[in-house]
């Protein structure tokens, strides 16, 4: 696995729910995604956790291979993870980083919901990105509530003009009926394609943070409050 040391962005994806929806077996899904998206700077790591503990254990092992200054991208189907899962994941990341005394540059979390709106999501992203931080939200078309989880290392945060890439992660399903909104498998592929763009954009720029408070090198933002409470 030495070659993985060279990756610049590390991705974790929880596709069980998506696979279940489209009736595909995880193995087949993994092979297709690896063939299509494991290229260049972006390399995915697919897991099919059946419980939070399995997820955390797998992430813990993968985390060891991530070098400092690298970006970690977590993509999850929100229906997979409950509030306790996301909280647990956030705490584990902090714990691993503290033990290693090295913090990943940034950790981005993306949750995918059955119902989202690019219009609302864009507005929120725009607001949050104004100050170098980015929040990814999913919006419930019905309730208007937002959810999502993000974490940013402030040593190399996402810049606003980079953040604007993210709304494209959430295609308007009513504008593309049957293409993304009804096929979670295609949606997953779409996200990976966009994530690859994010990786390239992120690493192509080096913001000047000379005035940064050196003590604070990691900021984790997680929104577990509105994540689906669907039992796993």
């Amino acid at each position: 696995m030495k070659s993985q040391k060279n990756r610049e962005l590390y991705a974790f994806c929880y596709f069980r729910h998506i696979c279940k929806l489209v009736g595909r077996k995880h193995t087949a899904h993994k092979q297709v995604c690896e063939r299509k998206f494991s290229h260049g700077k972006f390399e995915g790591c697919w897991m099919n956790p059946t419980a939070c503990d399995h997820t955390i254990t797998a992430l813990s092992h993968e985390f060891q291979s991530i070098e400092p200054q690298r970006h970690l991208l977590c993509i999850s189907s929100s229906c997979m993870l409950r509030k306790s899962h996301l909280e647990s994941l956030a705490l584990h990341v902090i714990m691993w980083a503290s033990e290693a005394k090295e913090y990943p540059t940034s950790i981005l979390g993306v949750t995918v919901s059955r119902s989202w709106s690019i219009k609302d999501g864009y507005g929120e992203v725009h607001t949050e990105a104004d100050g170098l931080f980015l929040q990814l939200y999913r919006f419930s078309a019905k309730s208007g509530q937002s959810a999502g989880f993000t974490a940013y290392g402030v040593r190399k945060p996402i810049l606003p003009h980079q953040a604007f890439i993210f709304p494209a992660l959430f295609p308007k399903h009513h504008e593309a009926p049957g293409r993304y909104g009804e096929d979670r498998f295609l949606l997953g592929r779409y996200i990976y394609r966009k994530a690859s763009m994010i990786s390239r954009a992120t690493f192509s720029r080096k913001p000047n943070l000379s005035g940064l408070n050196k003590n604070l090198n990691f900021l984790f933002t997680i929104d577990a409050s509105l994540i689906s409470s669907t039992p796993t």
Partner: protein
Amino acid sequence: MMSKPRILFFNPVRHALTVYKSLSSVTEPEVLTSKSRAEIFQDFKGKYNNITAIYSTSSSYAVCLIHSFELYNQLTA
């Protein structure tokens, strides 16, 4: 002996309490006690000036009335 890194929680952990307990073995987690925006910013120059990480949620705004970018601007000013 080196001190443990201080982790500031804008919101208390509600669900993953077991993990939170484990975190305490390698860090010094503490929940925000500041009562207002001004007090928070002041505390970052004082009692929170050596924190290592911040844990916050989208609900944190309701607690501290500070957006992430405001906090960032304060910390980098």
